[in-house]
């Protein structure tokens, strides 16, 4: 039985492994932090949140200060998916963010059925449809074809 725990990670209960849900890469032992099986890159936050105001004129520009915060990007070694983006001050050890009791998880899932994507995302509020709206361009394209 495989139990999805995040958008990109699941726990294989039989083999007690963290797995990538995109490419089935075996990330590492489920009783350890999944981060230990991923690739990490410390990123200057300005690469993602670029300065919008002229940085030569202003100290505050909509971009974070790289001396105060960095983005630790965790990638799946198999498929390169960005599994987690963690914002930390430079040098702050990565946080062990998910530590689950695997034996308890096995007991809980003994009688459960696998969840559908919709069940994983959670229920809709009344009156909201499942479909996201598409762009005008695509609609136009569909009309044309």
């Amino acid at each position, binding site marked *: 039985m495989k139990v999805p725990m995040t958008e990109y990670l699941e726990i294989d209960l039989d083999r007690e492994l963290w797995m990538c849900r995109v490419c089935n890469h075996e990330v590492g032992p489920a009783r350890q932090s999944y981060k230990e099986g991923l690739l990490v890159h410390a990123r200057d936050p300005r690469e993602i949140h670029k300065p919008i105001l002229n940085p030569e004129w202003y100290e505050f520009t909509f971009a974070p200060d790289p*001396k105060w*915060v960095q983005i630790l990007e965790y990638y799946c070694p198999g498929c390169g998916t960005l599994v987690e983006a963690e914002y930390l001050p430079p040098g702050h050890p990565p946080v062990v963010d998910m530590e689950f009791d695997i034996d308890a998880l096995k007991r809980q899932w003994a009688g459960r059925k696998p969840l559908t994507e919709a069940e994983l995302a*959670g229920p809709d509020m009344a009156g909201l449809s499942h479909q996201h709206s598409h762009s005008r361009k695509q609609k136009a394209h569909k009309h044309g074809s």
Partner: protein
Amino acid sequence: MGKSENLDEHNREQELISQFLADNVLFLGPDPEIMEHHDIAPRTETEDRAMAKESDPAVLTLVRDRLQAGCNETFEMLEQMGAAEGAKWGDLITGIFTPSGDLAIASTGGVLLFASLVHHPIKFINKYWANEPTVGIKEGDGFIHNDARYGNIHNTDQSLIVPIYHEGKMVAWAGATVHEGENGAIEPGGMPSAAEQVYDEGLKMSPFKVVENYELKKDLVTYLQNSVRSPKLQYEDMKVKLFVCRRLEQRVKAAIAEFGVETVVSSLRRGLEDSKTEVKRRLTEWPEGTVRTVIMADGTLRENCLIKIQVSMEKKGDELILDFRGSSPEFANRCNNTVLSSLKGMLCQLFLMFVWPDLPRNQAVFAPIRVICDKKSALHSSYLTPNAESMMTFFPAFTAAQLCVAKFLYGCPSKYTKVIAPWHNMIRTFIWGGLTQHNEMVGNLCADLNGMGGGARADRDGEHSVAPIFASMADTGEQELNEEDVPFLQIVSKKLMRDNQAFGKYRGGQGYEMIASNLKSSMWGFMVCCIGSKVSCTPGLFGGYSSPTYPLCKVKGVDTFEIMKSDPKKWEFSIVDIMNKKPFEGAKYTAHHMGLQFELCNRGELYMIMQGSGGGYGDVLDRDPDLVIKDLEEDLISHETARRIYHVVYNPETLVMDVEATKKARDAERAARKKRGVPFKQFVKQWNKPEPPADVPYYGSWGTDSTKIYAGPFAGIPRKVMSSDAIESIFMPNPRDVRIAELEAKLRECEGRVAKAGK
């Protein structure tokens, strides 16, 4: 005399001493027994009897729905009649409480957080005023309260609480709370970020009686009016809240007349007990284990510094423990400290709004959840620390918990809401004050604080500027209506800014820009109180990125209204264009962090801020390229973002997408990630440092050891290391003194250079 007689004598003496001490308490401060507990009160005998007599769930639900309708009705009334800016836009709530003081039913709209804290003052009134001969509680009484240390968020919110009687016996309490704004603090508007002591924060009302025989006591009303900048507002809203509480009383009495008093008592209590049981049941379905988050608040509103807020959330059986130990120490002379009960109120709202919105809106929902904080930390601050801007630490604490909850919930079969990335968590709005065009002195805020961007969800984007983090239903108001009362304009209002986006597979809902200026007043000013200018305050989920950071921008020394008249083409209508093109000659353009203390704005000078984005969800490379094109069409993102962040290839003129090239570009980026990524063990060897960077002012624990608390360095004050069980409050120097010291150092350096050149 026998031994037992001696013992009796001793006991009698002990009793006398206890009685003497109880009768002669010098000062009835906040009672830790009340303030540090959030469980529902024990069932009373009356409740027991009533529940035995009426236990039919159908009947009890009918009564509860009837009272719920009463709460919703009074919410509408309060919103329509309330004079406060906050009242007009939904920053208020009404509720019905049990005689013991537990919140049993709250209005569906409004700020639940307020109501979930009113049980503290009611419990105080019950404990201290009921048997106090100079006070007492009787039919027709009403009590007022606003001090967070007796149960509230901050003292800009005022509650009126009225006991409800049936045949001479108290059966419930009615309560109404409104974000009133003005409260006589050191700055106008009720949320003084300049406050350095609790005494700078304005009215600090411990619960006291202000209504007798259903009438406001004129002497006390006058005293309160005399203590604030808006005497009219103070009076008007006290009247409105009293009227609303009386309507609640009417509804409770009508329910009693129809169903009998036992049924009403049973219904209120049953709702609480069932909610608690149901929460425990739902918690058992969550996976067992611990989830952790670290959030960095980046300032006190007077200065930038890193204030650590961390939570370790442990789920064990039907119990949930939120352990915030290791978070920042409290600040002795800054007002960003949180009283523990305020933190709990905010967390209660997390579960009621974002996790189990289907449950009855009562306080029992939070009863099974435990909260642990270090004493004298920023989330459990002591009596004398100011707390007017407690949101600057408890909003990040909420966000930390929201992120943890998502990680517990994703794999859980029963969900009652979508899995969601953190909601934007800062009140990005203008607080204002001064003399109006009607010659009235006022102080309050814009309802734009309610326009926070929603977090991205597991299957769709977040909604733009949809609701505040603390209320599911609130309004952002009509600027044109405001302008009838106040002398400033929002020249640009509610316009989404390009690239103000938390990127992800699903993007966060975006926030809008606001450009304000004083048009009609000889004395008018603004204040802003948000963090997140150096470090993003709202992170993403499962690989989604955070919101950007947000500056406060100003254009001073020019009357742009005159330019609008003489040379309108010069006017640019976005913060970015004004700041980067500098269209007004002779003006001074500056960008700051968003902790602006009250400052006068001359006619035509510009104050410019931005509402924030909710967090992103999932990997940017997983974003449906078609949604990227849609964002381009709606001008939500730039071409640079589409290409550089989302790696989508398209014709920039026609926006027609190249599916193949996009797939190639994304594959190339995935390969590039694998190339630049380093195996974790190797990475931490060079990344991990034993303590915070030496040149960054840092407050809180570091790494996994939550018992060692760092503080500083700041402005020449060296870094201090404390044990978490012996935290000392942090004193910050006056920012003006810091600036003077900086300039003096520069001056000395220049003088030194001049002297050297002279030789």
